[in-house]
C-alpha cells in the first residue's frame, strides 16, 4: 500500500472517469468543481450539512442485527445499515442536501434531476421545497408507470415531473433529457446528479456526500465488536455502494461486494449487470464500463428494480473492480425478490427492491462463509414504493385472486 484508497479526488480513478461533455457545459462543471472544493473545507457549509443530516434526515442511521433473516444466510451474523429510515426513505437525501446547498452557494434558483425508481427525484423535490428552489425532475415514461406513487409524491412536493418518452423510456433516457435541459438553462440551473457517475466532479462529490454511510457504519461495527468480514450494497450507478465502501477501503480484511442487477440472468442478455457483462466506454460524461454493442451503441438494460436499471456504472466502481479491491456480483430478479420476501417475513422490514439485491448477495456470501462471519448490508431504501410491484410478483393483488 502506497497510500489510502479513500476519498480519491478524481477526475480519474485509475484510467476511468474524466469529463466527456459538450463544451457548453464545461464552464458550469468548472464552476461547480470550484464551488465544491471551497465548500468542502468551509465550516459554514460542512456545519450546515451536518445540522441538516442530524435534524432533518435523522442521522446517524442505526445498525440493526437481523438474526431471523441471518438463519437463512448460512448462520452468519448480518447487520443492516438502515438508510431506509432516512427522511424520504433512502440514502438519496444524503447527496441531495449537499448539492442543494451548493446550488444556493452558486446563486442558482432552479434544480433539475433525473430519477429511476423515483427515490432521487423525491429527495431532490424535498430539498427544493426546503430550500425554495424551482425543481424539474426527468423520469423515463416506463418508470413513471412502474413507480406512479413516487411521481405523485414529487408533484405533491411542488416539483414538475417530465416523463421521458424517447429511447428505452428509463433512467438512461431521463439522464439524456436532463443534460439537454442543462445545456439550454445552465445560467440559472444546477443539475443535481443522483449517482456517483457522470462527468467530474459528480463521481467524487456524490461519493463524498454518501461517505457518511460507511463512516458511521464503521464506528458502529467497531462498537459492536469489530469490523465486518464483508460489506455488501446494491449497485446501479453506485452511489449507496461507493458511500458504503469508502471508509472501509483501507481495511484490507473487509471484503467489499457490489450487487448488480442481473435481471433475467446475465446469460439471457436481459440484465443491468454492467461490470459483469459490459466493457469500457463513454456514457453520460465519463469513461467507465457500459453495456454496449460492437459499434458502441448503448444496449437496453433490464431489471425488476427501476433504480438499478441502468446500462452504466460509476467510474470509481470500475476502478475498484479493476484493481481487485471490490467484487461485483450479479443478482437476478428472482434472487432479489426471494431476499425481499425473506427480510419482510422474518424481520418485519420491507426493503426497496434495489436493496434486496444486496440482501440476496448476503444470503449467498453467508452460505459460503458460514457461522462466525459478520456481514454488513446497506439497506439503501425502504420498499413502500415497491408494494404494488412486489404484490404483483407474488400474486397478492386482490383482483388477481380469482
Amino acid at each position: 500500500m502506497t497510500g489510502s484508497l479513500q476519498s480519491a479526488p478524481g477526475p480519474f480513478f485509475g484510467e476511468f472517469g474524466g469529463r466527456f461533455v459538450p463544451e457548453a457545459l464545461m464552464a458550469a462543471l468548472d464552476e461547480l468543481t470550484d464551488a465544491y472544493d471551497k465548500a468542502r473545507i468551509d465550516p459554514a457549509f460542512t456545519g450546515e450539512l451536518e445540522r441538516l443530516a442530524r435534524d432533518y434526515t435523522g442521522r446517524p442511521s442505526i445498525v440493526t442485527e437481523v438474526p431471523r433473516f441471518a438463519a437463512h444466510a448460512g448462520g452468519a451474523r448480518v447487520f443492516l445499515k438502515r438508510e431506509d429510515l432516512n427522511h424520504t426513505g433512502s440514502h438519496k437525501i444524503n447527496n441531495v442536501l449537499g448539492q442543494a446547498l451548493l446550488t444556493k452557494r452558486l446563486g442558482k434558483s432552479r434544480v433539475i434531476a433525473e430519477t429511476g425508481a423515483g427515490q432521487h427525484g423525491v429527495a431532490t423535490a424535498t430539498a427544493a421545497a426546503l430550500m425554495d428552489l424551482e425543481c424539474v425532475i426527468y423520469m423515463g415514461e416506463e418508470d413513471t408507470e412502474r413507480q406512479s406513487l413516487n411521481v405523485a409524491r414529487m408533484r405533491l412536493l411542488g416539483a414538475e415531473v417530465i416523463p421521458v418518452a424517447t429511447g428505452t423510456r428509463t433512467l438512461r433516457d431521463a439522464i439524456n433529457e436532463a443534460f439537454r435541459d442543462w445545456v439550454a438553462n445552465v445560467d440559472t440551473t444546477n443539475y443535481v446528479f443522483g449517482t456517483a457517475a457522470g462527468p467530474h466532479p459528480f463521481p467524487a462529490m456524490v461519493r463524498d456526500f454518501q461517505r457518511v454511510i460507511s463512516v458511521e457504519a464503521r464506528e458502529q461495527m467497531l462498537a459492536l465488536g469489530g469490523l465486518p468480514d464483508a460489506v455488501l450494497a446494491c449497485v446501479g450507478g453506485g452511489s449507496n455502494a461507493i458511500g458504503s465502501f469508502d471508509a472501509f477501503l483501507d481495511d484490507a480484511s473487509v471484503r467489499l461486494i457490489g450487487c448488480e442487477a442481473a435481471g433475467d440472468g446475465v446469460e439471457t442478455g436481459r440484465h443491468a449487470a454492467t461490470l459483469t457483462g459490459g466493457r469500457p466506454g463513454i456514457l453520460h460524461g465519463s469513461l467507465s464500463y457500459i453495456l454496449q454493442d460492437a459499434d458502441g451503441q448503448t444496449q437496453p438494460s433490464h431489471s425488476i428494480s427501476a433504480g438499478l436499471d441502468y446500462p452504466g456504472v460509476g467510474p470509481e466502481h470500475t476502478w475498484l473492480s479493476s484493481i481487485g479491491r471490490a467484487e461485483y456480483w450479479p443478482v437476478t430478479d428472482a434472487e432479489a425478490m426471494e431476499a425481499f420476501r425473506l427480510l419482510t417475513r422474518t424481520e418485519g422490514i420491507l426493503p426497496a427492491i434495489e436493496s434486496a439485491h444486496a440482501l440476496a448477495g448476503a444470503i449467498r456470501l453467508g452460505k459460503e462463509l458460514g457461522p462466525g462471519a459478520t456481514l454488513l448490508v446497506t439497506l439503501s431504501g425502504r420498499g413502500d414504493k415497491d408494494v404494488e410491484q412486489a404484490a404483483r410478483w407474488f400474486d397478492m393483488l386482490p383482483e388477481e385472486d380469482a
Partner: protein
Amino acid sequence: MSALTDRLDACKAEGRAALVGYLPVGYPDVETSIAAMRVLVEAGCDVVEVGPPYSDPVLDGPVIQHAAAVALERGVTVDDAFVAVRAVAEAGAVPVVMSYANLMLQRGWDRFAADLRAAGGAGVITPDLTPDAAPEWVDAARAAEVDTIFLVAPSTTRERMRLTCDATRGFVYATPLMGVTGERAALGDAAERVVREAREAGAERVCIGVGVSTGEQAAEVAGFADGVIVGTAFVRALGDEGDLERLRAKVAELAAGVRSAA
C-alpha cells in the same frame, strides 16, 4: 491546410459563406440517406456533415433524435457512415463526420481517423468531446491528417475559447444559442458575439451551427461567419418518407441565403 479549409477559403473568395449540411446516415434508410446527401451537394452544400447515429445523443433535439432512433432500429452501423463519406466526396463536396465520442472510442481513435481519411473524409466534429478531454483523439487525427473540429458556446470562457481554437483544425463550430440542435425563430446578437470571441482567440474560420433553418437566417449569419451549418431543417424536410425533392428545395433556399448576404 486541408480540403476543408481550401473549400471554405474558395467560398470566401467568391464573397460568400459556405453552406454546411448535416444528415444522419441511415435515415430513413441507408440508401435513401446517401441519396439525400448527394442532393445536398447538387443543391448547393459545400460541406456535408455525415452523422453516424448514436443511441444517446445528448446534444441533439427531438428531430435528430427521432431520425437517429429510426436509423438504429433499421440496423445502421458506423461502417455505413464511411460509405456515405465516400459518396459525398465522389459527389464533389467535402465530407466531414459528426460523431459522439463512444462510437469513435469503440472503433479506436487511430482507426476511426484512418478509416475516415481512407474514405475521403476531411474532419470530425465532436459534440461531446472537448480538446482537453481527448488528447488521444487529437494525436490520432493529426497523424491521419484529419481536421479536429471542436465546438464553442456562449458559455465558453475566454481561457477555454483559446484552448479550443488552438486545438481546432478546419473550422471552429460556434453554437450561438445555449441548447440542443433544432430550429429557432431568432438567433439574436449572441451569434455575432461568439464568432467575434472565437476570432479574437485566434480562430481563422468560424461556422455557425444550431438553430439556422431559413434562407433569411442563413443570409444573416453569412454576414459575419465563414459558414452556416444546417441540420434539423434538412432532416425535417427529408422526413420519414425520404422526400428528396422537398429536401432539394430546402437546400436551395439555404444555398440562396448564404449567397445573398450583404
